[in-house]
């Protein structure tokens, strides 16, 4: 089906769950008023990014009133949002939730936690252990959180699992100032566009804005059609609500033109990966 996506490029406050929930609610209500079918928020939209020791203070259980509130909002619009999850046995995850029809439909725990350069996620958070596509009213979806997207295997697995739309929630710090456009922006657009082409999938990329301790998140949220073309884009560095539309005809055309997934040899990949794993563990 054709569907419209609201890219909710917000500026969360660090560690202020209630303030952020109010901001998210207002943005989602605006997306509903604009008749968008899906609203996507950034990674850790409910909490902000450089949490460090705040992680346990801002973590939410899956039965928390905050998530229940978001679930209720999803009676009118499908919703993807990032937050810190705490499990009953006190594991903490950088999670993304998909709400639809008033319910939590899918939960993805970020698998690849960057812990290098300016990132320190694995010090504070546990790693997710799976990539699973899931069914929605827009067909099968694959959720990714930021760094997940930089690991080729992640979008590959989701596409193999039948996802036709990849939704990536991000908190990407802008850096690299010696080129015509921001270095990070070029890198991400190249990545989302190439991923869409390799997998003939749609890609939704939503990044936050605002500064935390001098680090500026660059925004630039966008939609990529299965041909790799960016079909809608939010401004850089400014909060915005940008709406774009995916047309099913584009997916159909691309999959006929380039039947890459039909020709993909899952058994060969599995066989070779098994061999590689065995040889490495020797």
């Amino acid at each position, binding site marked *: 089906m054709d569907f419209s996506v609201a890219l909710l490029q917000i*500026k969360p*406050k*660090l*560690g*202020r769950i209630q303030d952020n929930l109010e901001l998210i609610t207002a943005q989602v209500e605006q997306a509903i008023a604009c008749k968008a079918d899906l609203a996507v928020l950034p990674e850790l939209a409910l909490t902000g990014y*450089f*949490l*460090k*020791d*705040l992680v346990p203070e801002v973590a939410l259980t899956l039965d928390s009133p905050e998530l229940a509130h978001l679930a209720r909002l999803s009676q009118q619009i499908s919703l993807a949002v990032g937050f810190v999850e705490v499990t009953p046995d006190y594991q903490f995850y950088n999670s993304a939730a998909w709400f639809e029809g008033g319910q939590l439909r899918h939960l993805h725990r970020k698998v690849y936690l960057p812990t290098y350069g300016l990132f320190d996620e694995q010090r504070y958070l546990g790693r997710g252990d799976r990539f699973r596509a899931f069914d929605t009213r827009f067909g099968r979806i694959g959720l990714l959180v930021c760094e997940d997207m930089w690991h080729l295997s992640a979008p590959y697995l989701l596409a193999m699992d039948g996802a036709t739309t990849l939704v990536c929630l991000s908190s990407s710090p*802008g850096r690299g*100032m*010696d*080129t*015509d*456009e*921001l270095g990070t922006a070029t890198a991400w657009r190249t990545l989302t566009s190439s991923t869409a082409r390799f997998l003939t999938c749609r890609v939704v990329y939503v990044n936050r804005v*605002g*500064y*935390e*301790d*001098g680090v*500026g998140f660059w925004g630039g949220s966008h939609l990529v059609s299965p041909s790799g073309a960016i079909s809608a884009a939010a401004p850089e*560095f400014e909060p915005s609500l940008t709406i774009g539309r995916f047309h099913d005809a584009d997916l159909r055309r691309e999959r006929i033109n380039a039947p890459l997934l039909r020709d993909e040899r899952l058994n060969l990949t599995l066989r070779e990966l098994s061999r590689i794993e065995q040889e490495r563990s020797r």
Partner: protein
Amino acid sequence: MSSLIINTSLVRRILIGFLQDEIWKVGAKKAVLGLSGGIDSALVCHLAAEALGPENVSAICMPYKTSNPESEAHARLVAEASGVQYCVIPITSMVDAYFDQFPDANAMRRGNKMARERMTILFDHSALNGALVLGTSNKTELLLGYGTLYGDMASALNPIGDLYKSQVWQLSAEVGVPQPVIDKQPSADLWAGQTDEEELGFTYREVDELLYRMVDQRATTDELVATGFAREFVDTVYAKVQNSHFKRRLPVIAKVSGRTIDRDFRYSRDWGK
């Protein structure tokens, strides 16, 4: 081709956003900075005026009796060009009152005292006006430790601390810093005729190229020597960076508890903002 060349309109946009976001979110509207007549504070003054509106920026020139009169003239030029609030507060009487007790103090002690005297004035005006103190140290100075701890290195926010001097020159031209301020020789202005480059023993352009490769590109000494830098120059600069690292850190806290500030008690400065 040096990658010290920056996209000035992009950097300008990021720094304006930085000043607005980091100042407004703590509930402040105003900023205060020391205007020396040099290019670094001139650049910060122009950026702050653009970010906050010139009426919300106080620039204070704080000359000592040995300061070059041209510095004050240049500070005034920058204040007029950027439209900010401007005043002159001489520090001679305070500094001299102290050194009357220590007449033999050398130039370094006197220079540090002047820098710290200026710092106390800026933070007093911070309290007076509800304004945040803007730092004006560039990345070259910060890496070399060419500044006074708790003096000119003290601030609430520093928009230019990740820009090398060579990049400060580029951005200054973009934001409209008056040409005489861009063209003049960099000087700490502690005594007549002093220049940074003479005191440091190398030019900013040379050391920026080296620091960029050493710090940003993580080049090894052997790689740097192979690129044409003299080994002695590389070693000297590396030692300066290493030996001044204490200036870029909080004071060391002796750990005795289970949760020590900055070691296992870690929060962003923008906690709750």
